[in-house]
């Protein structure tokens, strides 16, 4: 119950102000199609430099939580999911809005998000200290395999192509080695003076997540944002609460499914929402109503995608393995303040860890309250033309990456990586594993070198890195995640080709 000691820290004027700012801003950003939660958090990181670590993390955590929930606004009112996590919400939410029940759908989505989100953060509170103590038993070889596991799991599970996902991870791991070697001081892969200090993680995150979005908007040309915002009629919040209470099965399935999926690194909110929707439909007494504006569809999808947020931080805060691309960006936010996840975080910086986690709990309540009232405004923001959005994001990316170290080199690196990622994405490569490789690369290398030294002084590399229950367990998980993803990819291709034959 250590977390209770740090509750008051969330309510200092600056911390609470940042929590409010992150929540309201996140709701509006989340509602804006094209601005993903990952990109929103990446663009916010430069603003946290001037803050203390705790306050910076409060801002980022609030933005993460509320962008996922805010995405439901455009999913329901515009039929455009604000984020991939809100795809399942569109299925029934927009139909409800078309039937004149837009306000009810929005209220249900925010209430379900809050219930799921609070459950997810409670899981985070109770699981994290246990796992972080377990992480103390990890030596260099285990930490090396954990870092590799982080890259391979996201590389294989988060990508449409397993090989290209893993290749993206390799590119990220290689990019992490650019600059001066820590032990020998040797120059490695410095092809341009801008790379002398290595690749700055924040500039890279901004480039990899923001610039491809900007270029995607450019590639659509002079396109009108012709999505029509459906009129929201008044609906009592109390009635929405009663409706939620009448649908405990949908809420329970959504919350539990989202929480479990959140704990699995690499499986994002999109999967959580869709799996919860599908399971709720299977167990519902009215499955025929799904897709026709059924409130259970909205409740299941939204409780699941927000329940995923808290648990996705469990592997991040304990083992340095981000559960989602946004969690990877949060890891970058931790590292720039010199804080390393794991036992170090809870033993040496308990104030930072617990205040951040507590703020996420309070943030869920704030998100629900503001969500119910600013949804209409968020929907208007969602109608901002893509040309304006693209130009704003480009400006923020340039100023944000420059402000990290007041270096034009970082701006060049940001732009080069962003343009490269845009084109790579067109060919099936993925930004998430690349970012994971870039973030986990230094951890993997430091532990690999340390492990090699121990191995050379003892039984040799093979014995040190490939034996022992924990090493073997981690290797098996690495192989299993790759094997499972490859099997799923082959199965889906077989299914597609069968469809093509029939078609």
């Amino acid at each position: 119950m250590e977390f209770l000691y740090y509750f008051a820290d969330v309510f200092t004027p600056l911390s609470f102000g940042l929590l409010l700012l992150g929540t309201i801003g996140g709701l509006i950003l989340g509602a804006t199609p094209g601005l993903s939660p990952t990109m929103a958090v990446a663009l916010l990181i430069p603003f946290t430099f001037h803050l203390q670590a705790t306050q910076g993390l409060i801002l980022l955590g609030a933005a993460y939580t509320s962008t996922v929930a805010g995405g439901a606004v455009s999913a329901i009112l515009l039929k455009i999911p604000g984020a991939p996590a809100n795809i399942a919400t569109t299925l029934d939410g927009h139909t409800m809005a078309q039937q004149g029940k837009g306000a009810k759908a929005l209220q249900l989505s925010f209430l379900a998000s809050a219930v799921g989100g609070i459950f997810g953060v409670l899981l985070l509170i109770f699981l994290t200290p246990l796992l972080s103590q377990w992480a103390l038993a990890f030596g260099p070889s285990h930490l090396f395999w954990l870092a590799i596991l982080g890259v391979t799991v996201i590389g294989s599970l988060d990508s449409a192509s397993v090989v290209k996902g893993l290749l993206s991870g390799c590119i990220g791991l290689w990019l992490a080695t650019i600059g001066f070697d820590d032990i020998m001081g040797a120059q490695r892969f410095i092809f341009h003076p801008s790379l002398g200090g290595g690749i700055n993680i924040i500039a890279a995150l901004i480039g990899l997540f923001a610039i491809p979005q900007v270029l995607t908007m450019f590639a659509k040309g002079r396109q009108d944002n012709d999505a029509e915002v459906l009129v929201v009629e008044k609906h009592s919040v109390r009635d929405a609460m009663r409706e939620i209470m009448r649908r405990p099965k949908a809420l329970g399935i959504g919350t539990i499914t989202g929480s479990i999926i959140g704990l699995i690194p690499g499986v994002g909110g999109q999967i959580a929402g869709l799996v919860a929707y599908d399971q709720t439909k299977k167990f519902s007494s009215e499955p025929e109503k799904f897709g026709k504006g059924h409130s259970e569809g909205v409740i299941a999808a939204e409780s699941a995608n927000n329940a995923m947020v808290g648990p996705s931080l469990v592997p991040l805060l304990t083992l340095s393995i981000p559960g989602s691309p946004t969690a990877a960006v949060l890891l970058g936010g931790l590292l720039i303040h010199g804080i390393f996840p794991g036992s170090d975080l809870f033993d040496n910086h308990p104030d930072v860890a617990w205040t951040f986690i507590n703020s996420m709990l309070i943030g869920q309540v704030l998100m629900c309250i503001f969500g119910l009232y600013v949804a209409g405004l968020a929907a208007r923001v969602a109608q901002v033309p893509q040309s304006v959005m693209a130009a704003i994001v480009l400006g923020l990316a340039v100023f944000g990456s420059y402000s990290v170290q007041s270096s034009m080199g970082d701006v060049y690196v940001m732009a080069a990586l962003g343009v490269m990622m845009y084109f790579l994405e067109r060919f099936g490569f993925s930004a998430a594993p690349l970012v994971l490789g870039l973030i986990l690369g230094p951890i993997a290398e430091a532990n690999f070198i340390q492990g090699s030294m121990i191995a050379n002084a003892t039984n040799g590399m093979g014995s040190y890195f490939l034996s022992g229950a924990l090493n073997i367990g981690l290797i098996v998980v690495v192989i299993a995640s790759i094997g499972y993803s490859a099997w799923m990819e082959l199965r889906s291709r077989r299914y597609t080709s069968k469809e093509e034959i029939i078609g």
Partner: protein
Amino acid sequence: MSMQSLPRLQHILASGVVAAVGLRVAWISYTAQPSEAFLFPRLIATVFVVLALWTFAKAVLGWTKIGHGISTGQMVKLAPGLAIALIYIFWAAKAFGFYTAGTATFFILLSLYDPAPHNEAKSWIKRAIITAGYLLVMYGLFAKLLKVYTPREIFF
């Protein structure tokens, strides 16, 4: 060139570039000195090259299923915006100062991609107001709030 063969050629080009980078990384990792500093890069480069060559071979054989490439139409729409963004980042930001170059870039991009008609004074006034708002917000955020000293050069 038929429309169907375009993505295949693009896949070959893209995976070829990735494979070339992988081979270069591997070459440096295995030949550069001191070799101890390249122990981890050698490990990464080996996996990198294997996966990159596999991807390249699949592209050459036409077995690539993931990724739709980029169509000529998309490229035509993208090119002006990309060119302006690159000029802004790699030259204008430093030459004219962040705020001047940023504001000019914002206005040009808005004019290029805004669906509002180009022959109406009203839409130009709207663009000018949005641009002025953008300048105010960026200056307020970065110069006043975060106190970031950006290159000012000939303007500000």
